[in-house]
């Protein structure tokens, strides 16, 4: 319960800090945090390196927008369409991968293949998705706020609270899962899935649950992200996006539920703190991946916890 209190200052922050850049960086950190936390449910807890996460992120963004435009439904219903769509796709892909007992590298490669196929479809289905040019949004989500009725979501502060609530909810849902008997099943699968199988754990079912729930989290992040920047293009589904997610989860720490949010924050804030060009950013990003794996395998949060325990 104590760890939830750590979120409290973030709720009070906009009352003190009015700097738009700081708040914008935090909004991006929260949205990408949702993505990284949900990825870590599959990778850090169930032990499956999925490279489908960027595809779930992008597919949901497209599904939400296109369903809103074609069926003229509000954003929140569109978000549900996006999440359900991604969940259904994930059930199919997950069922294929886990039924055929694909592990480690082979699972990564097959999810990467499906992710690339999804990207190619989005890229080439010009009449529906506007291809590589992407789509500029003309609609904004609306929200019912007590006392003010239904108003459009605009302005950094409103997005700040919306995404902060979303990331807190994601962390709560994931930690409820991880700290339940289901989380124990995930751990046993991660550590030794053959042993888990002989102990009577339904390996297929729990791998599938982690994959579908994780991708559903990515779907929420995708829709929020798309409507925050009001633009989508096929790069949402790119391999680089998947790699960025892995980097966030690893950098934050894969052993804890909320730690990937820290990773998302550091990787989002870094380019603003040290002002460098795109090439140097790529270099730094690569070095972070390498050095985290070699020097800090437990991530920032894991290393801090160890320091505190040692002190």
């Amino acid at each position, binding site marked *: 319960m104590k760890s939830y209190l750590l979120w409290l200052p973030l709720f009070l922050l906009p009352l003190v800090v009015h700097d738009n850049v700081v708040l914008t960086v935090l909004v991006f950190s929260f949205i990408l945090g949702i993505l990284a936390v949900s990825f870590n449910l599959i990778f850090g807890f169930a032990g499956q390196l999925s490279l489908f996460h960027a595809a779930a992120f992008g597919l949901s963004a497209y599904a939400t927008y296109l369903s809103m435009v074609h069926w003229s439904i509000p954003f929140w219903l569109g978000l549900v369409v996006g999440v359900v769509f991604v969940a259904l796709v994930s059930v199919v892909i997950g069922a294929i991968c886990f039924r055929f007992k694909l592990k480690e*590298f082979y699972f990564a490669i097959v999810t990467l293949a*499906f992710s690339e196929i999804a990207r*190619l479809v989005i890229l080439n289905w010009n009449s529906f998705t506007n291809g590589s040019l992407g789509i500029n949004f003309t609609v904004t989500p609306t929200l019912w706020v007590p006392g003010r009725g239904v108003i459009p979501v605009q302005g950094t502060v409103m997005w700040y609270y919306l995404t902060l609530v979303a990331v807190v909810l994601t962390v709560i849902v994931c930690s409820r899962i991880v700290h339940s008997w289901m989380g124990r099943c995930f751990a046993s699968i991660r550590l030794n899935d053959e042993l888990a199988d002989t102990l009577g754990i339904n390996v297929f079912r729990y791998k599938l649950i982690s994959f579908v729930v994780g991708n559903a989290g990515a779907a929420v992040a995708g829709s929020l992200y798309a409507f925050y920047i009001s633009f989508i293009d096929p790069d949402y589904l790119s391999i680089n996006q998947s790699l960025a997610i892995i980097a966030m989860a690893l950098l934050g720490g894969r052993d804890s539920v909320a730690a990937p949010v820290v990773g998302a924050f550091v990787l989002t804030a870094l380019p603003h703190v040290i002002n460098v060009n795109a090439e140097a950013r790529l270099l730094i990003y*690569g070095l972070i991946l390498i050095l985290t*794996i070699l020097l800090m395998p437990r991530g920032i949060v894991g290393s801090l916890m160890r320091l505190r325990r040692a002190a």
Partner: protein
Amino acid sequence: MLQLVVGQLLNGVIVGTLYAIIALGVTLTFGITGIVNFALGAFMMLGAYITWYLTDGIGVPYPLAVPLAVLCVALLGLAVDQALFRFTRNNLINGLIVSIGLISVLVAIVLMIWTTTPQSMHYVLPGIFRIGGVIVPKMKAVVFIVLLLVILLTYASLTRTWAGRAAYAYAQNPEAAALMGVRTGVLQAGVAAYSTALAGLGGALYASLYSIAPEIGASYILKGVEAAILAGIGSVVGSLVGGIIIGVAEGVGSIFLPSAYNDAYGLIFLVLILLFKPAGLFGSKS
């Protein structure tokens, strides 16, 4: 129509050997160090850039620039192996992530030095062969023969020399190999460097055929991994056949199927292979 098909077939075979040289590196690295080095594509890109810089920038003759570029890439590969991959041996996930980080670093360095503008080398060997109406550029024929020779020589040295047999032995049973006097650290570093050298050679030859850009490595490593898996990871001749299958399928497929989804066909094929014949087309054990 027949000419078109035959032309695409030949073209596919030649591109396929480029895939195969990457696939061979992937297979060797995986067999000996237990990781899949995705950075081989980036090493290939680096080989292409170094060759281009040596010939068009400094004026080194192409036949000399190729071995020089291969040497540079191999040395860098050795350094990277000792500095990074030595610590991720047999840890697939960590190795994968380190190699992905390495791609970013190498691409960023190339971007800083040579920018994003694609570069094309001057024609090394102009002219074409005309075989019954089918046109094959001379340089493509040379590239094909060089790559084929290197792959076959690699196969021969793996089966005929002491070091090659040591590598095979190590792949089958590391502990037994070590007990028989195989110096495993040296073997792993050597194979890692040799794999990057192969990728560098692929890049050096690629530069003479197509224009080069920092992102060329990405599609080649994907095709290389596809080719390696297709044939069953661990087989040298298999990676050659796997590469040629993918090259030909793409070349001939582009005549009959919408080419926008060109890359998707290979991926679908790969997924099917992994699901129904995980040991690869030529693998025996399931």
